[in-house]
């Protein structure tokens, strides 16, 4: 704070040292952004910046232009395209080869992983050995006693424990023990008694007076698992084979199995006391009593002798044990204690040597069939009794048996009226009914149907209506196409049925054919005639039957054993097919008719670099990006020619076609590489800014170039005074010559980039005014000439004394110097280098009527460009 201000403030009564007085209110400069961008996770992200990722951080959704939803490649399913596209081809021959696809084929790695996890869970449960140590508790297996079990346990590989079993084991559980807190000996005895279902008598629970035994606690007894066996026999429920009558009634219950039905579970709760109340009241009392008396004899100790709990079967044990001691093997050795000899001998697999195939044997199943056929006639008589024997043991039906026993016959289903009718009446009725049902043609089938099965010894020829037979004959339908012989017999049958003057002899059975079979065959014929009845009446006339009867493929019976001629025929057919497959091209080549027949032409795209190396133009240039040339040029046209012409580029080029320069420009609008853009390189947009460049307002130039000095101020004033008129002149001048100027401009365009590249060191910007300005008072310019000469050092680019007005900008851009306007001078363009040769050829055709003013417009862009560059370099 300056001292003056302090004093002033002091006068005002403000304490200059106070913080308020020192507060600064002006901020200088722009504050820097915070050093760290605050991480805001909830920050709004535009939609196009968001992306969807799966749990593994892979991008799943891509933009529509970058692939859309991609299941393939990066998150790959198989190929870059995602799913490998498969074409469906229907092929009868390859049907067998088709591999059924499994669901795994359509899963990606995640799905597979999931599947695998699921499987793992299943596997752990599968491993669980449910029966481990518990199956033995079941009382049914008589043959397994403790020794056998122990042996088995030692011999067999240890079953894999389930997870639960492992946990239990860690907690101290052992196989064979029950689950629950350890109990005292007394409690355990009690449990045993309760499990056995006996009445708990105080005397039973007397603990043997053993110091050691009472010292310890014991694991509770194991709870047996109820194994429900599959019932695969035909016995009644609850019946076991070998049960006597009394046993099956219920007397056979042994003590261990019987007892009060108590809830089985892990230990006994306080409420589950096996009291009389819990006993099933409907249980037969006599049986219980008998049980008790029968099995009280059994030593209770036996139960405990069995190391593994559960209901042991004392009956079986007692029966087996004595036998074991006496049995001996066939070689005299005594059977081990605890083992029982099996009374069933081990069944041996019998193996037979392969039959010798006689030499020259040929597989001929036909022979076997023939043999069977020849034996057929006496077949039925043999099989009939067999059948009955098979199905009913005694050969007597239930009714027969009933009558034999003198039973009253069971009530029948309500008798129908037909039962009271005579056989003939019934037939007649049925005939009529079926005729109504099936139309006029169904009678023959119905006549034969209700008839009782004909006796096998008589040939019954089913009747076919004559007109049906006739129609079937004429219809040409061949039901037995695969078997010509049968077809012939069918025809014969039809003929026999068809109305004719001399009815042919009725069909006879084939030699070796049983009557039964023949009858059946004839019935088939009758049915066939019915089924394949031809179209009747008016419809029939609309169709013609095929003239060639197609007999299906000849099927050879038995194994296929091709003969030599078969093979030869096949080869020939193959060869023929191959010959037919020969394309005309190959045929022509074989015939030596080379030329259009053997020539194929297709487009081929050589690589760009290859064309370059071979110095060949790219034959099929890639479709170019739609050029912006037309709008740009149109814009220029409007700028240059004003709204007067209002025409596009094409209208400019079209009339210029007659000129030499114009002709080369004819195609310039197409954006092709031709003379118009030679030197522009590959970039078509290059130099376009020169076309579309808008001249900045004069004020800008003044602000930059005009000096503050008095004399230049004068000039500026003059300029200001004369500003308005020049601009319109420019426009009118430009409007007049458009057809010629545009090509010229185009030709000159290549120069632009060249001029644009300026060495900064040597750069001497020149300001070229529009001709309108240049046109203004030449005298005045001459006045300035002296001044200019005086300051010649500053003038940098000045070729001609008579040149246009130039403003040189150097270290002291103070003055605008004006000179006489030389109308047709090209020097007013900023050309540092001579135009390329090509361009030179396409100079503007001299037009006689052209006013000298016409020239400048093309130069304007260059001039503008120069000016622009000047600005850039300032």
């Amino acid at each position, binding site marked *: 704070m300056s001292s003056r201000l302090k004093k002033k403030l002091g006068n005002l009564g403000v304490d200059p040292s106070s913080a308020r007085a020192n507060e600064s209110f002006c901020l200088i400069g722009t504050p820097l952004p915070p050093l760290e961008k605050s991480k805001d996770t909830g920050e709004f992200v535009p939609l196009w910046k968001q992306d969807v990722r799966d749990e593994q951080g892979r991008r799943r959704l891509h933009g529509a232009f970058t692939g859309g939803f991609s299941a393939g490649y990066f998150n790959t399913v198989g190929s870059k395209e995602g799913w490998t596209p498969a074409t469906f081809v229907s092929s009868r021959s390859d049907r067998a080869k088709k591999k059924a696809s499994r669901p795994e084929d359509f899963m990606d790695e995640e799905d597979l992983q999931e599947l695998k996890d699921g499987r793992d869970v299943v596997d752990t449960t599968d491993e669980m050995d449910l029966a481990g140590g518990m199956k033995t508790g079941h009382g049914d297996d008589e043959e397994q006693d403790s020794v056998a079990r122990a042996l088995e346990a030692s011999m067999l590989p240890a079953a894999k424990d389930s997870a639960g079993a492992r946990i239990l084991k860690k907690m101290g559980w052992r196989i064979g023990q029950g689950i629950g807190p350890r109990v005292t000996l007394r409690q355990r005895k009690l449990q045993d008694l309760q499990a056995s279902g006996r009445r708990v008598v105080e005397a039973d629970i007397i603990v043997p007076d053993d110091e050691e035994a009472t010292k310890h606690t014991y694991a509770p007894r194991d709870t047996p698992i109820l194994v429900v066996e599959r019932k695969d026999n035909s016995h009644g429920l609850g019946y076991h084979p070998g049960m006597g009558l009394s046993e099956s009634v219920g007397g056979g219950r042994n003590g261990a199995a019987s007892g009060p039905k108590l809830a089985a579970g892990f230990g006994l709760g306080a409420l589950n006391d096996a009291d009389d109340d819990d006993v099933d009241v409907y249980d037969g009392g006599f049986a219980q009593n008998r049980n008790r008396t029968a099995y009280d004899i059994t030593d209770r100790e036996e139960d405990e002798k069995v190391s593994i709990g559960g209901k042991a079967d004392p009956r079986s044990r007692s029966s087996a044990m004595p036998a074991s001691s006496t049995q001996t093997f066939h070689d005299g050795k005594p059977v081990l204690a605890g083992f029982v000899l099996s009374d069933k001998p081990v069944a041996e697999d019998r193996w037979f040597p392969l039959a010798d195939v006689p030499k020259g044997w040929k597989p001929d199943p036909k022979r076997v069939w023939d043999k069977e056929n020849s034996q057929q006639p006496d077949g039925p008589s043999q099989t009939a009794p067999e059948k009955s024997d098979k199905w009913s043991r005694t050969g007597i039906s239930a009714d027969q048996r009933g009558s034999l026993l003198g039973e009253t016959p069971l009530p029948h289903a309500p008798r129908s009226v037909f039962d009271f009718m005579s056989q003939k009446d019934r037939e007649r009725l049925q005939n009529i009914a079926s005729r109504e049902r099936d139309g006029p043609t169904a009678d023959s089938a119905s006549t034969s149907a209700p008839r009782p099965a004909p006796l096998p010894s008589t040939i019954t020829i089913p009747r076919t209506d004559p007109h049906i037979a006739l129609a079937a004959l004429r219809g040409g339908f061949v039901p037995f196409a695969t078997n010509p012989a049968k077809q012939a017999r069918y025809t014969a049958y039809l003929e026999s049925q068809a109305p004719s003057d001399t009815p042919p002899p009725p069909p006879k059975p084939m030699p070796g054919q049983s009557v039964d079979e023949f009858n059946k065959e004839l019935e088939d014929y009758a049915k066939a005639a019915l089924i394949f009845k031809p179209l009747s009446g008016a419809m029939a006339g609309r169709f013609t039957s095929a003239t060639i009867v197609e007999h299906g493929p000849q099927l050879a019976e038995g194994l296929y054993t091709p003969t030599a001629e078969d093979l030869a025929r096949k080869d020939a057919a193959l060869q023929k097919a191959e010959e037919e497959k020969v394309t005309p*091209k*190959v045929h*022509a*080549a*074989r015939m*030596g*008719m*080379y*030329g*259009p027949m*053997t*020539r*194929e*032409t*297709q*487009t*081929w*795209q*050589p*690589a760009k*670099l*290859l*064309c370059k*190396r*071979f110095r*060949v*133009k*790219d*034959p*099929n240039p890639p479709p170019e990006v739609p050029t912006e040339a037309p709008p740009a040029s149109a814009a220029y046209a409007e700028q240059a020619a004003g709204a007067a012409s209002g025409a596009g580029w094409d209208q400019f080029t079209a009339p210029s076609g007659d000129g030499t320069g114009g002709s080369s420009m004819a195609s310039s609008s197409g954006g092709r590489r031709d003379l118009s853009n030679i030197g522009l390189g590959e970039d078509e947009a290059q130099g376009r800014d020169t076309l579309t460049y808008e001249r900045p307002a004069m004020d800008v130039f003044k602000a930059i170039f005009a000096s503050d000095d008095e004399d230049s101020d004068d000039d500026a004033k003059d300029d200001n005074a004369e500003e308005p008129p020049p601009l319109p002149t420019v426009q009118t001048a430009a409007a007049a010559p458009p057809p010629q100027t545009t090509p010229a401009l185009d030709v000159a365009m290549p120069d632009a980039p060249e001029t644009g590249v300026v060495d900064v060191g040597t750069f001497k910007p020149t300001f070229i005014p529009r001709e309108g300005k240049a046109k203004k008072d030449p005298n005045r310019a001459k006045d300035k000439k002296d001044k200019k000469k005086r300051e010649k050092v500053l003038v940098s680019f000045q070729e001609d004394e008579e040149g246009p007005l130039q403003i040189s900008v150097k270290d002291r851009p103070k003055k605008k110097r004006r000179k006489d306007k030389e109308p047709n001078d090209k020097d007013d363009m900023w050309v540092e280098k001579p135009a390329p040769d090509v361009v030179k050829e396409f100079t503007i055709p001299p037009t006689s009527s052209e006013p000298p003013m016409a020239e400048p417009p093309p130069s304007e862009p260059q001039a503008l460009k120069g000016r622009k560059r000047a600005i850039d370099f300032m």
Partner: protein
Amino acid sequence: MPPRAERGPEPLPRQLHTTLSAHKGPVNVARYAKGAAKYILTGGQDRTVKLWNANLGTEVKTFAAHGYEVLSISVSHDNAQFASSGGDRSVFVWDVGTAVTTRRLAGHMGKIHVVEFNEDASVLASGSFDSTVRLWDLRAQNRQAIQVLEEARDAVQTLHVGSTYITTGSLDGHVRTYDLRKGELRSDYMGYPVTAVVPTQDSQTLLVTTVDSHIRLMDMTNGKLLNDFTGHTNTEYRCRACFGHGEATVVCGDEKATVWAWDLLDAKPLQPNPPPKVHNKVITWTEHHPIEKGEMLTASADGTVKVWRQAETEQPM
């Protein structure tokens, strides 16, 4: 000049000038150098490329880098480098002076039957058993092929690189001409596996050797048959036929180790007919001297390369 007075094609040089026999196995290819063509490059089954002085018959240099047999050689226009290819599935570009490989272009999947420079040795084309033709850029350092021509359905046995076209001959019986200027591929079906294509200087006609013992002169513009040269035996091996001096004759060494010559125009075998046997085994390569009138060479599976001259042109070169 030969004693033949009548106007007709030059007789074949039948006098053995020298025998180049340093190869230890069949010689697969023998090429004249460019320019005055005073040197011969041969490549053989013994995995070496040898440079010979054709006049003196002396071995100048041996280029040994191949791991497999050498099947094809192409000499660049300036004789400064040459390319060779063979069983080792890569093209070797050699510097002749230092006898080292400057590039090894790998990319083919099978043995490379043929390799050819373009006119200014900026592009190298190689045709392979894998039925592709690969075009390699020798200007840039890029080791990738510029383009792979995969139209052939069978091994590419031969190719020729013209100024603006590439002609390939394949075992699938097609001669394919890739026209760079038109952007067009013309496939001519010959009917038999093509083992050699040699165009005339004007690039209008093409001499196509196929293994049906025929040599056909095809019109490249429309694919028509202009002439058919028969008489020799060629059913199994690549026996390259070539034009004689001035393209007036067609010369081919066949599998019976004889060298046949035909008049280009009337396709009649020149005398002697049948020609004498000049090698012990099949003649694998026949090439006429590019400039010299009376000189040609034959390479054979018997391990020798023979340089033939006319009796009259015996003067030392």
